[in-house]
């Protein structure tokens, strides 16, 4: 069993779908951050078999809506004085903007670089999003977008 030191004040991003942890780690800029953080991959999970966990020894302002789009099952634990003071469960945001690129090569956002690609929730039950411009569909939590 791998032991990782507990954090005093910070965040634990738990229940990340196994394999998505590194993307989120990079998206949060943790690979270049000056404070301590760690990514633990393929942790055994009763719920999903395997999961990734990110521990951050700092209280960050995170865009939870984007985390919800990447993986709606994620739970963020806020730690203060080594105690979990808050659990934040993700929800599917109504809009995700400026984070992902549209994968449709014919989409106008591919060539007009000043445009912020925007994805709108069209079906909450199925987690379906559409590109505001070209209507290409994406499913939240699936690895079909590029950070």
């Amino acid at each position, binding site marked *: 069993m791998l032991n990782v030191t507990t954090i005093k004040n910070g965040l634990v991003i738990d229940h990340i779908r196994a394999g998505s942890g590194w993307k989120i780690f990079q998206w949060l800029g943790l690979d270049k951050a000056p404070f301590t953080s760690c990514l633990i991959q393929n942790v055994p999970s009763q719920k999903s078999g395997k999961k990734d966990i990110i521990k951050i020894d700092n209280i960050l302002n995170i865009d939870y809506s984007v985390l919800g789009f990447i993986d709606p099952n994620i739970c963020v634990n806020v730690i203060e004085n080594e105690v979990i003071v808050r659990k934040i469960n993700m929800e599917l945001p109504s809009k995700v903007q400026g984070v992902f690129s549209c994968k*449709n090569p*014919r*989409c*106008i*956002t*591919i*060539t*007009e670089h*000043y*445009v912020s690609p925007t994805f709108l929730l*069209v*079906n909450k039950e199925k987690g*379906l999003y*559409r*590109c*505001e*411009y*070209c*209507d*290409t*569909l994406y499913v939240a939590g699936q690895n079909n977008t590029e950070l």
Partner: protein
Amino acid sequence: MLTGRHLIQPDDLSVSEIDEICSLAEQIIVDPKSFQDVCRGKILATLFFEPSTRTRLSFEAAMLRLGGAVEGFADASYTSSTKGETLADTIRVVSSYADVIAMRTPKEGAALLASKYSACPIINAGDGGHYHPTQTLTDMVTIRQLCGGFENHVIGFCGDLKFGRTVHSLAEAMRHYKGNKFVFISPKELTVPDYLIKNVLEPAGVQYETAESLDDVIDKLDILYMTRVQKERFFNEQDYIRLKDCYILDKARMKKAKDNMIVLHPLPRVNEIAPEVDDDPRAAYFKQVKYGMYARMALIAKLTGSI
């Protein structure tokens, strides 16, 4: 109120607004002289970043017949976009000169983007394989003229349903009217896209079926909407050659169809409708061209606040 509005996709128009435009088109068809000066002093800019002679000429004829003037380009190679100008800047500039802009581009979503920077109404004249709402208005004016209304039709869409934007737009518009049923006839490589089924038809509770053979379903259709398998929508030539002749309408197939079925086609056709069908009274695609000009006249008059 349509004055000053953009038309990017069929959904931008309510059912009553479509009726309003179709009714005005009908008035123009009956008495075109009464409308020959309603856009006097106004300018239509036609920005065609990809060639489409038919659509461009239809827009220009429409504005000229309303007494207005036209400016624009038929090919992006003559524009500042080749120097790296953004679409946003092009639109800011052109909308300073014109009263209404009709634009076609190969990029999906370009018309929506343009509408965010334009000082005048944008009419989407086709954005890639996405939307082509004025073709939809053309089709609807034609259907209303020849079929008496928009309800209770079995509409067959045949050919390239994956990239054929006219199909997507017409299906979106016709889903609002009760009793319509859609039959999508295509090879499996060119089936109608998921977003249309999942986002548009299923939420609206529209009945639809798919078929691979035109022969199997032609006898139940009231309207047959044929489409061209477009070479420019394919990434490689082999796929185009393999699929382009899959669905050809000829006299033999027309014999199986209802006597009052009408055949529509957004044109240009290549070989998907044999020339021998042209003399059949059910062939409506050349009437459709003229109705298209009237539909665009009605739209331009409304968006520019000329009527």
